[in-house]
């Protein structure tokens, strides 16, 4: 065993060399990145020269990384430049609000924060139900800046956090790819990840969400893991654990790490690649990582309780057993028995492992069938289009990179292969998980591109360099660190002269190079276009363009939220569909019933039930929930398609899930099974609260001369119920473009209004009543 380490080390070195010699086939790995700037500075980071080229090389990679950071940062600023420095969408508003709480009240106050403004009347213990990494990161940056008297508002810190972290992501991607392949591929990967839309979609300025920092933590953890597997040093493993801890504190996606790393170890075992390095790395990682991850209040004891984490524990045990067997193998002579025993153990462990994975993901699958999860758009399965849309050319080239990796397999390339395969699977399941696929696609595509460029650009260099080499020694002297590559060139020159002289080679090579460059250029154009058009809308502010190109800003959301903030009671309770919960809490600072942290399905179902019942039934529910205001989104005036009527069927479905006796989805369809808001629509729909609130007084409104009054532009239909009277609600506020409508729930009348005529003591009336009674009596006796 004592001998084992150096042996494995040299094996490891040779595996490195195989990679290096591969790159030696043509031009240096960094060819693409440094084309035209310094022909000499190649050689990959492995030669480790301290001479001048190494300096050039580090300067160059530093510059490229810096530029990648800059490009990544600035391409995320579309929303800020077009609109303003504002928090986007829904979840970021909650994160912003809690960060604000953190900075104003301090860390411990944040951990103990009971938010009575959410989930009325339940409230929410925020400190214990949130991944605090994002808030702590932003709060820390804000604290440090303010310590230095750089008076930046916490909002700006939050807005620009994700773009800044995208630069860190590209650096960690560079490091990881460098470990896997070589420096050139690393630089390419850093450039890819800086601008790839799949990652930008979650990290534009203003998108203050967990994913923005989690991808950095993910990549950095993987880098440190690969590093620790390569070196077998506890130092790197501890670094990996700390990074893992950060990841756990930042995003629920840490489960991906705690399953992928054991999977890597397991596959290494299967491939007979067990070594002391793997043993040290994984044992340390598992124990320290486990202890650290349990420090996050929200995670708590989950790592030793839930099935998602069991694979890691299983592999840990397996590794110990395997190492013990290895130890025994040295002592015992019965080889056959040993092998059999090992086989038995590994098969058993494999079965356990696979069944755990199976259980885990069937669990996930079951979750998808709960309507509330299915109702979220980002939980939908990914379409092919969105693969191409988010990754463009990379999605085509990354299998090539994967193939290169598998062809020249070593310990860490096993890891990246597993990473790629599992990420592809998850990305196929859910749109949201496209995010975990993106980094590995960037890395593998970078490997593919880098290999191609090495191959083809190397010949470009050859055509120019031989005369230089023949004639000038000073050129060689200048690039003394680089002769490794030049040797390869000389060989080609001499031994492949005939081939080259045929004349076709260089042409084809230059054509291929040009094509590759074209692809890369188109990739950059596509990335910018997608970022600018698809991912840079704050969705809190809408913009529309006139015929002459001038822009109208539709600021209805903030108008209504600000109205709530300023002109309602501080403790008013606002009922709305859960999508708007975080925004109401963040912008209007009012108590909400349900919000985007959809942890309580029955509460949401109750709100859904109120929205889909008729007004009287809804009033009962709203009274029981102490609702003061009801807020809905209505897009019929401007043709905004994401409004509540379009989401309405989900409300019905979720309500039906909990209250199947009161709400039935089929009631809201026409007999033909259509969902229509016009006259042909089902009467249940035309009289439910949501319909009434959306279309209250809309029937009088004529938007233009070609359409009848009450024409809904979103659904292109004239509404069916134009004469809407509200009894228990009154319109409190409607925004300028009717996008947000707020209704006030009236208090109970001081005295119940009686439906029949009041009994009167007037004499004449008395007579009348007696008459009536007598008539009744008569009627009854007949």
């Amino acid at each position, binding site marked *: 065993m004592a001998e084992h380490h150096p042996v494995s080390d040299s094996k490891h070195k040779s595996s490195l060399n195989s990679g290096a010699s591969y790159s030696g086939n043509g031009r240096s790995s960094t060819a693409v990145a440094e084309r035209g700037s310094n022909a000499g500075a190649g050689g990959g980071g492995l030669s480790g020269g301290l001479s001048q080229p190494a300096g050039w090389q580090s300067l160059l990679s530093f510059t490229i990384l810096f530029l990648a950071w800059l490009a990544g940062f600035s391409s995320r600023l579309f929303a800020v430049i077009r609109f303003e420095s*504002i928090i986007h969408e829904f979840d970021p508003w909650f994160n912003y609000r809690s960060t604000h709480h953190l900075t104003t009240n301090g860390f411990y106050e944040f951990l103990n924060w009971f938010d009575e403004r959410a989930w009325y009347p339940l409230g929410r213990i925020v400190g214990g139900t949130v991944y605090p990494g994002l808030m702590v990161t932003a709060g820390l940056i804000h604290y440090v800046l303010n310590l230095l*008297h*750089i008076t930046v508002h916490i909002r700006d810190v939050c807005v620009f956090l994700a773009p800044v972290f995208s630069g860190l992501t590209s650096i960690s991607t560079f490091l990881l790819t460098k470990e896997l392949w070589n420096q050139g591929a690393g630089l390419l990967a850093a450039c890819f990840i800086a601008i790839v839309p799949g990652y930008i979609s979650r990290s534009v300025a203003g998108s203050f969400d967990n994913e923005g920092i989690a991808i950095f933590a993910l990549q950095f953890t993987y880098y440190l893991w690969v590093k620790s597997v390569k070196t077998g040093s506890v130092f790197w493993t501890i670094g990996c654990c700390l990074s893992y801890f950060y990841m756990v504190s930042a995003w629920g996606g840490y489960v991906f790490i705690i399953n992928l790393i054991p999977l890597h170890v397991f596959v290494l075992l299967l491939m007979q690649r067990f070594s002391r390095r793997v043993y040290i790395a994984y044992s340390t990682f598992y124990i320290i990582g486990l202890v650290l991850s349990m420090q996050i209040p929200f995670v708590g004891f989950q790592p030793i309780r839930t099935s998602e984490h069991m694979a890691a524990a299983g592999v840990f045990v397996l590794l110990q057993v395997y190492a013990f067997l290895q130890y025994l193998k040295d002592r015992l002579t019965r080889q056959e028995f040993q092998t059999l025993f090992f086989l038995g153990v590994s098969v058993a462990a494999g079965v356990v492992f696979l069944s755990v994975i199976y259980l885990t993901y069937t669990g996930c699958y079951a979750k998808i069938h709960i309507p509330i999860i299915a109702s979220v758009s980002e939980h939908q399965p990914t379409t092919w289009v969105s693969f191409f849309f988010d990754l463009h050319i990379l999605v085509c080239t990354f299998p090539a990179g994967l193939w290169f990796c598998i062809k020249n397999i070593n310990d860490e390339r096993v890891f990246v292969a597993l990473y790629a395969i599992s990420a592809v699977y998850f990305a196929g399941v859910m749109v949201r998980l496209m995010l975990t696929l993106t980094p590995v696609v960037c890395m593998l595509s970078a490997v593919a591109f880098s290999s191609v460029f090495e191959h083809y650009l190397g010949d470009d260099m050859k055509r120019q360099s031989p005369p230089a080499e023949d004639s000038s020694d000073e050129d060689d002297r200048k690039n003394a660190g680089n*002769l490794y590559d030049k*040797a390869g060139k000389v*060989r080609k020159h001499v031994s492949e002269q005939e081939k080259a002289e045929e004349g076709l080679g260089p042409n084809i090579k230059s054509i291929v190079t040009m094509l590759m460059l074209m692809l890369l250029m188109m990739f950059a154009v596509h990335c910018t276009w997608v970022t600018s058009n698809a991912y840079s809308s704050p969705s*809190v502010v809408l913009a529309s363009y006139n015929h002459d190109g001038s822009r109208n800003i539709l600021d209805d959301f903030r108008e*209504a939220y*600000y*109205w709530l903030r300023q002109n309602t009671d501080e403790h008013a309770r606002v009922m709305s569909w859960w999508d708007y919960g975080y925004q109401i809490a963040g912008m209007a600072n009012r108590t909400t019933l349900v919000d985007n942290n959809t942890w309580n399905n029955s509460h949401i179902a109750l709100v859904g039930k109120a929205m889909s019942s008729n007004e009287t039934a809804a009033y009962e529910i709203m009274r029981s929930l102490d609702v003061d205001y009801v807020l809905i989104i209505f897009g019929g005036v401007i043709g905004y398609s994401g409004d509540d009527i379009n989401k309405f069927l989900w409300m019905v479905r979720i309500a039906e899930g909990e209250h199947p006796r009161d709400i039935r989805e089929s009631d809201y369809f026409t007999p033909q099974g259509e969902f229509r808001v016009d006259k042909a629509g089902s009467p249940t729909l035309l009289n439910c609260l949501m319909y009434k609130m959306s279309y209250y007084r809309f029937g009088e409104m004529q938007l233009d001369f070609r359409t009848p009054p009450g024409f809904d532009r979103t659904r292109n239909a004239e509404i069916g119920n134009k004469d809407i009277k509200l009894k228990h609600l009154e319109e409190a506020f409607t925004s300028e473009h009717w996008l947000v409508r707020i209704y006030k729930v009236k208090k109970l009348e001081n005295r119940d209004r009686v439906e029949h005529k009041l009994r009167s003591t007037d004499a004449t009336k008395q007579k009348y009543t007696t008459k009536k009674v007598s008539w009744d009596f008569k009627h009854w006796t007949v």
Partner: protein
Amino acid sequence: LNVVVVIVFLLGSDSLPTLGASEVSADGLVNEEVKRTVDLSTHLAKITAEIVLSNQGHSAVQSFMLAVEADLAPHLAYIGASVKGDEEEDGTLELQQTTIPGQSGQFYKVQLPSTLAAGAQLKAKVEMTFSHVLKPFPTQITQAERQLVVFQGNHYLYSPYPTRSQTTRVRLASKTVESYTKLGNPSKNDEIVEYGPFRDVAPFSEDTMKIHYENNTPFLTISSITRTIEVSHWGNIAVEETIDLRHTGAVLKGPFSRYDYQRQSDSGISSVKSFKTILPASAQDVYYRDEIGNISTSHLQVLDDSVEVEVRPRFPLFGGWKTHYMIGYNLPSYEYLYTLGDQYALKMRLVDHVYDDQVIDSLTVKIILPEGARNIHVDTPYRIDRMPNQLHYTYLDTFGRPVLVATKNNLVEHHIQDVVVHYNFNKILMLQEPLLVVGAFYILFFTVIIYVRLDFAITKDPAAEVRMKVASITEQVLTLVNKRLGLYRHMDEVVNRYKQSRDTGALNSGRKTLEADHRTLTNEISSLQARLKAEGSDLADKVGEVQKLDGQVKELVCRSCQEAERLVAGKVKKEAYIESEKTLTSKRQELVSRIDSLLDAL
């Protein structure tokens, strides 16, 4: 002069011995003729009175008294008096608050520019502005209703002096008047109600004038405003106003219908959709925002003498609704900051225009001076409450900037006046901030240099060092082998040239140099090989192999050289030469590729 002027505040007026009104008028002043105008066309009550004052006493007087009714006095925002000379030159007079025992109300003693001799007359103009005196009635209205307000005032001029003759003219906001008091059969003409003339009114006479009329002008009130002025000696003055705005008219009752508001022009007629704020002409980088971001519904118009911002709150302000926003801009400091040596003077408006006929309930002004400002002295245009100075830290500050804080309640447009802040500042301190930045960068670079240059490893890794040494030696070997291969190619050329020129001398010299260079290179490689061996690397064997192969290559080169010589000498036929040359070349090719593969393995 026996006017009893008690310089007040410390003593309650009740405890003072009562002095009769007759004694007050004992200085013999009489309001000869009074023209009062009560302007109620906005949400303010602006009362101006033109008074012809005559001294019917026996001695000259230095001052006269102004009085404000007790009901109105708490709402008095501004009072000013001026003397109307013949030459139309308005001399603003100095006022001093006093009390008159036994009489309710507020009193001001006006210092005359020159003494008024007995029997002389004087034309004075008194301006008073009251805020929050127009009470909406009914206090709640629906969106469709119009806003009605009630004003309660005095038919007469409230004065410590007897009045000979006076008229009161009331200007209203609209023709619609619900009711008005009918003292002396007033005449009403459109928006104007005229009372009087009243003759011989006794001092301190009060008679309630009550007017109930329609007033849809914006009843906006700034419930609080914080104005922050940050002076930088780098050429910029940043101004930021944080404003709480409230519609103090009749409160909206019932629903707000956007449909009615959009379709009917008179729906919500008393609501406020937008107003104009006038900023200084040199204002730049204007922003208008609130806690949740930029308010996108505003417009900016740059005029010759001002910058106009059309401030449109996010939502129309109905009665009882409020909003909150910030507006800020930058000004070049040369327009407002004056300097003489180390002495500086900042002359800025204490409060600026927000909207026409503005009412500010509570004002806080913060003036942030540069770090290191000393001997601060403030000249205010009117009395204002100073708070203790604060410290403010911002970019690159070390010991904080002094902040002057002052507050005042109940302000109107008349209070838009300049404040002057004098202070001393040592110009050397300007260098502090750049030096701080330079120092920070210096430390940063220095740390990087130290980190890169020094070895902080706590353990030595001999294996890695050996590996690095070997790598560098290998590199050198590669260089040399390449050079050697280059020599052969060079030799080929020499031979080719020889074949054409048949110059034996050139060939021989070429061969000689080849031999010499080759020997030195081979020796160098051998020495490197020895060093590799010393490091214990197995690469030494490979280098040895390369050397061996190279020897063969060299032999081949020499042979081809000899062959060429023989060809030139005519000892071999051309075909045979080509044949042998071919075999030689292929052999060489083979050897070179073997060397290459060996080199690759290095």
